């Protein structure tokens, strides 16, 4: 069993910059930090599970959360350095290794800083208190008389009496519980948290030395490729092994149930063999036609759950001066990582090691253990960063593919998906339908609101089940059971309305395999809620900003709406500003607001769009975002996340829709699933950050994404008077809508 270090991060001297050096697993480098610990030795209530101080004074954070490209390894390191009073450059981070890090579940839901940060901060505070107590004995002074500066404890007023952290504990264990009683540093004293510390991963990423999972090379490693069924649900008829018998370097054709793969010595030959292998499939009943998607969703049997039911909605609607009704539709979309999913697995009879870009090393471990029929303790999953995933993509599936192929050949196997594997088979963000009715009184106030969302679950993550892994499904694992998650996220609008009913109608079969995509159901629900608020504002002849503000009671909510209006230079006007339909290009401006999960970060976004009436083409020219996620740990990292959310969600709103036919997904490359390109991104994105150092830090990876589709749709309505109730706002769709005016 291979238990090598995948990456060893060290600090190299040079201009004060943090430099990351690596040794590949095949090199079996000696560790500079305490070695792999057994899983049983990693309870979350022990300092040693989280932190180690080396004899060289370096601080290692063992973190169950993982870097997905969002900068959390930098931000989490800032939190530890701050609480421990050490220079940030002393930090090293080990992430997501079931052999070495605590189980922090999945890295998802904009929760890494929000939920993953506090236990790490507590452990660091406990470590600092322990060190102060050790220093007190060492220096013969009471702990209250001691101060810490960059890992050196000294006596107040007598800096000759001092001792370093490494002298006190370097290379040894704390052997101390995290009591949660250790005092946390007051935010007013922060000097590292809140600063735009440069990301630790970028030097290696811009020079080609960063270790992505795609770059993991294990000695004796072979290359595998999987041959997917000809249609979703197809059953294997037969495999003609002779069709690849003469091909160079082919080691084995592997078949298990409907799982088919080839293993070869060379990568390009594995690809050729997978393509040449003759496989016959028995095709199942075809999927419904794509044109029937919305009806299929609306007609599916559902489980109904009332999320809100206050006042008397029916009476409110009956008594309203005006009642509006609208249906919004949001298609299947995909994560569409630039680097297809990849994993290396080394499965031996006595244990397995898997290198994966997974978001959840521990849940993947139990799923793989189930797939391989091995005890979980014999499976080690080591996270290695992959191409950005934006949710549950093929990362876990590739690990399962590699595991089955490695077991079949008894050697380490690397599997990287081809582009058509990724586009075609990654779990999709599911299509949803949202329907809403609301009533306005004579004064233009919303007096009743009735909202229903039709959605499947947005999570089919591994969760310990082999049946949630594509290879598991194909190899005949028991069908996974997944709870209803995520489709109701932000289904409830953030406004104060006397009579309201919000209902989720959950359906079981989403047509295409689906799971979490950035924000889960929140962007879709916010698109419906915030588009409809604009439709109501239009009917009430009210300014969209003022209309929202007079229905908001939360001061933080009002503050971000006011902040974005100020940032954008919003000029109050009824919605929409009337434009003559016809020719040329017209500009419009729209706003949308959301509080993520109705409980976390507040975001308000204004989009300026240009709509070409002749072609229907929409260009998002400028975007303004006001953002309040409590305490800001790293303002530049936060801006990077917000900008990314804006650009990615413009792409989703304007261009993206997974297409399918009776057999399966037909969006199989970047031509059939285009995303936003450099010529199409906005002229500028402006951001106003609202910092609350006294409040907890909230997640920021997803909240902005919720607001973008509605802000664009509202801007299009402002520019043209035409309301688009189906995403994406493609040129064809906009042109068609304009032609109906």
């Amino acid at each position, binding site marked *: 069993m291979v238990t090598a270090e995948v990456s060893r991060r060290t600090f190299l001297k040079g201009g004060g910059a943090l430099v990351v050096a690596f040794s590949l697993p095949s090199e079996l480098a000696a560790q500079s930090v305490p070695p792999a610990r057994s899983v049983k030795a990693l309870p979350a209530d022990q300092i040693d599970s989280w932190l180690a101080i080396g004899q060289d004074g370096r601080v290692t954070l063992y973190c169950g959360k993982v870097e997905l490209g969002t900068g959390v390894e930098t931000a989490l390191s800032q939190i530890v350095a701050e609480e421990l009073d050490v220079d940030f450059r002393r930090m090293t981070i080990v992430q997501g290794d079931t052999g070495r890090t605590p189980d922090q579940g999945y890295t998802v839901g904009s929760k890494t800083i929000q939920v993953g940060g506090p236990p790490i901060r507590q452990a660091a505070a406990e470590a600092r208190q322990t060190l102060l107590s050790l220093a007190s004995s060492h220096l013969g002074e009471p702990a209250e008389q001691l101060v810490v500066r960059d890992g050196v404890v000294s006596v107040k007023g007598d800096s000759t009496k001092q001792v370093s952290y490494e002298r006190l504990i370097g290379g040894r264990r704390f052997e101390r519980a995290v009591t949660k009683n250790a005092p946390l540093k007051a935010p007013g004293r922060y000097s590292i948290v809140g600063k735009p510390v440069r*990301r630790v991963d970028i030097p290696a990423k*811009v020079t080609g030395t960063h270790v992505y999972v795609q770059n993991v090379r294990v000695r004796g490693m072979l290359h595998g490729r999987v041959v997917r069924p000809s249609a979703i649900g197809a059953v294997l008829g037969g495999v003609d092994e002779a069709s690849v018998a003469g091909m160079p370097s082919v080691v084995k054709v592997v078949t298990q149930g409907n799982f088919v793969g080839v293993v070869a010595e060379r990568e390009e030959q594995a690809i050729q063999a997978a393509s040449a292998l003759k496989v016959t499939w028995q095709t199942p009943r075809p999927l419904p036609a794509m044109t029937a998607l919305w009806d299929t969703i609306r007609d599916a049997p559902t489980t109904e759950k009332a999320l809100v039911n206050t006042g008397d909605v029916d009476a409110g609607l009956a008594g309203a001066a005006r009642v509006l009704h609208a249906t919004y539709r949001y298609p299947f979309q995909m994560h569409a990582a*630039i680097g297809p999913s990849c994993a290396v697995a080394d499965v031996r009879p006595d244990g397995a090691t898997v290198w994966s870009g997974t978001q959840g090393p521990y849940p993947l471990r139990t799923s793989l253990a189930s797939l391989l029929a091995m005890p979980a303790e014999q499976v080690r999953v080591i996270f290695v960063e992959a191409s950005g995933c934006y949710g549950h993509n093929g990362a876990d599936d590739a690990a399962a593919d590699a595991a089955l192929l490695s077991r079949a050949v008894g050697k380490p196997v690397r599997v990287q998906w081809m582009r058509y594997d990724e586009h075609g088979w990654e779990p999709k963000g599911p299509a949803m339908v949202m329907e809403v009715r609301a009533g306005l009184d004579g004064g233009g106030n919303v007096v009743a609101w009735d909202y229903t969302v039709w959605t499947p679950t947005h999570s089919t993550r591994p969760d310990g089940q082999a049946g949630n892994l594509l290879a598991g499904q194909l190899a005949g694992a028991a069908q996974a059971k997944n709870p209803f998650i995520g489709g109701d996220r932000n289904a409830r609008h953030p406004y104060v309305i006397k009579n309201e009913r919000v209902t989720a109608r959950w359906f079981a079969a989403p047509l295409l395999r689906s799971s979490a995509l950035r924000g889960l159901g929140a962007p879709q629900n916010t698109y419906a809620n915030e588009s409809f608020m604009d439709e109501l504002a239009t009917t009430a002849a009210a300014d969209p900003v003022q209309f929202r503000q007079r229905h908001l009671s939360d001061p933080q909510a009002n503050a971000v709406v006011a902040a974005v209006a100020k940032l954008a230079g919003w000029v109050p006007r009824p919605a929409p500003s009337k434009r003559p339909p016809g020719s040329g290009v017209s500009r419009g401006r729209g706003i949308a607001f959301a509080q993520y999960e109705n409980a976390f970060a507040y975001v308000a976004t204004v989009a300026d769009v240009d709509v070409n009436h002749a072609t229907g083409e929409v260009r998002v020219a400028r975007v303004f975002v006001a953002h309040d996620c409590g305490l800001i740990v790293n303002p530049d990292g936060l801006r990077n996340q917000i900008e990314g959310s804006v650009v990615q969600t413009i792409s989703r709103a304007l261009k993206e829709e997974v297409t399918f036919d009776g057999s399966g997904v037909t969006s199989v490359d970047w031509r059939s699933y285009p995303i936003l390109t450099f010529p199409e*991104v906005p002229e500028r994105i402006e951001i106003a950050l609202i910092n609350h150092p006294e409040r907890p830090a909230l997640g920021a990876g997803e909240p902005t994404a919720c607001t973008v589709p509605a802000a664009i749709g509202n801007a299009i309505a402002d520019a043209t008077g035409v309301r688009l109730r189906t995403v994406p706002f493609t040129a064809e769709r906009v042109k068609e809508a304009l032609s109906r005016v």
Partner: protein
Amino acid sequence: MAGDLRITVNGKQHRVDTSDDTPLLYVLRNELQLNGPRFGCGLSQCGACTVHLNGDAVRSCVTPVSAAVGGAVTTLEGLGTVEKPHPLQQAFLEEQAVQCGYCINGIIMTAAALLTKNPRATESQIRSALAGNLCRCGTHMRILRAVRRVARA
């Protein structure tokens, strides 16, 4: 055709034993253990695999290794290092113009080829040159700032 091919990568000569039509990408990654160029699509659609061949930005996923024989290949590793970064690499650091970074190889290589030919490239020229390089994290605004920083220097 299998054969013993000689290619020059980042100033060093290598002999590789592979067939003529093997995509250059697999030779760079699997024979020479280089990590800069990356597999993204294998279809010349995304740009993640971009390298320089005689100074031109080419897609190594669809370039047969035989096309590189007698020419000079440069990868991201050959452009600069952490200790001695290329001005573009430095600019990407200054602007923190990376999220996951998987696409960054192709973007830096494409921009470097552009700026060699057109050192004062304008914003719209930079956008056009990068039209075939996809980024999914949405780091575009920072990337454009980083490239402009060098174009203005």
